[in-house]
């Protein structure tokens, strides 16, 4: 099963965890064959929100919703089940500073 681990951090804590530690975590997960992909994100000020309504493109700056914690990065992982995914998420270093949301990936079903 694939799970997406979404890392959330408050703006003041975006650099609370050293990049070296995050890279070590990523390398460890990649080596163990657990990680499919992972990236850290630029801060929320750089976000652009895109919508298409009635064929019209509208672009606004800033995120879709204001929240205290912002999306700071993600890990797409492969795990046997939800509890294994939770164990991986618990080792993502920013889990100590912010939170990690674990979501199972939904397989698209073209016949439904």
């Amino acid at each position: 099963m694939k799970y997406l681990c979404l890392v959330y951090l408050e703006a003041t804590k975006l650099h609370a965890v050293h990049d070296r530690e995050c890279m070590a975590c990523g390398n460890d997960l990649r080596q163990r064959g657990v990680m499919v992909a992972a990236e850290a994100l630029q801060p929320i000020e750089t976000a652009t929100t895109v919508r298409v309504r009635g064929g019209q493109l509208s672009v606004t700056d800033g995120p879709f919703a204001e929240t205290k914690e912002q999306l700071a990065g993600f890990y797409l992982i492969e795990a046997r089940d939800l509890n294994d995914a939770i164990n991986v998420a618990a080792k993502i270093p920013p889990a100590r500073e912010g939170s990690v949301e674990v979501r199972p990936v939904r397989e698209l079903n073209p016949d439904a």
Partner: protein
Amino acid sequence: MDAAESAREAVNATYLSDSRRVLATLIRLLGDFDVAEEALHDAFRAALEQWPRDGVPANPRAWLVSAGRFKAIDAARRRKRFDSLDEMDDAANLGAVNPVEWTDDESVEDDRLRLIFTCCHPALAPDAQVALTLREVCGLTTEEIARAFLTPAPTLAQRIVRAKARIRDARIPYQVPAPAELPGRLDSVLRVIYLVFNEGYAASAGAALTREDLSSEAIRLGRLLVELLPEAEAVGLLALMLLHESRRFARTSESGDIVLLEDQDRSLWNRDHIAEGSRLVERALSSGRFGAYSLQAAIAAVHADAARPSDTDWDEIVGLYDALFERESSPVIELNRAVAVAMRDGPEAGLRIIERILARGDLRDYRPAHAARAELLRRVGRIADARGSYERALSLSRLEPERRHLERRLAELNAHPHESQGNV
């Protein structure tokens, strides 16, 4: 098939047959469920890389345990420079485990028992025991368990996380209980297995498939326990489950309605389950240390023995209920005994006992008590009283097939009040 492909198949086959054994041993060596599960994953990944290249090792299980242990020590060392001091201590401990005799057969079989007893430890809540046992001992995924118990997966995952934290924090030892403790601890293991079985057996139509899997999982677990620890009650529980399971296809109609024991098509009963169950009952009873599970199994075996309902040895069944009641004086057992007495001595005799139980205030809200009373009242011709009891039973029933059954009985009673409809 080339050598590499057959090595990959060997890895998969070993996962199916031995991953739980390897996990059980790794928990002992590494002292932590989560660390051990990670090590298990890493060991099988290493096998997938190395077996196709170097060949399948002579003792795959020992290879996996040793690889898992090595990977865990390695991972702890790599994390050490980022982790806090007490986690460094843990890492140092991992390396200090004495590698002597970690994989000889006897200690490995003990590890599986240790795992079972730890997952069913009385310090854990019953639903946590069930979830942990199914995941760690049986190897079901969190999502599979959640589906079978009709629980959201995040709720179940949380239950498992908390149970593991409890094991860590309460320092629940990873060991088979000492003989003095064994009966009590075994009770809680048997209760977990029976709970899993009943969850799969007392199923209604809808989710029938996954729930039947739970019953087979419980039987597999029962077999494992008997193999590892052949105590009389473990044998008795396995017998009980097999004898119940033998009637699975006879106990509901195609439309999902309940078919009572006496109305079941006995040709649908699974003869292999009955034969095995009956053999196990004899084995449990002859040990002299049997208890409630063995006696209930013995009762089920007497039923299984009767080719037709009228061949049932009710005298034997009443005697077994007497023995059961002596050990566990519950009103439910008393009620079941009353039904057996009614079959042996006539409805009035059974009715007298049921009236006595209800007069005491016990089982006042227990649906089967009112359903049994209704049936016996009908048979002695007290139709108005019977109707009242059926209605009371119906008001207490929450399960759809059960309600349909009671409604049918009530309708029959209203249409043909004096026709015989058989037993309760």
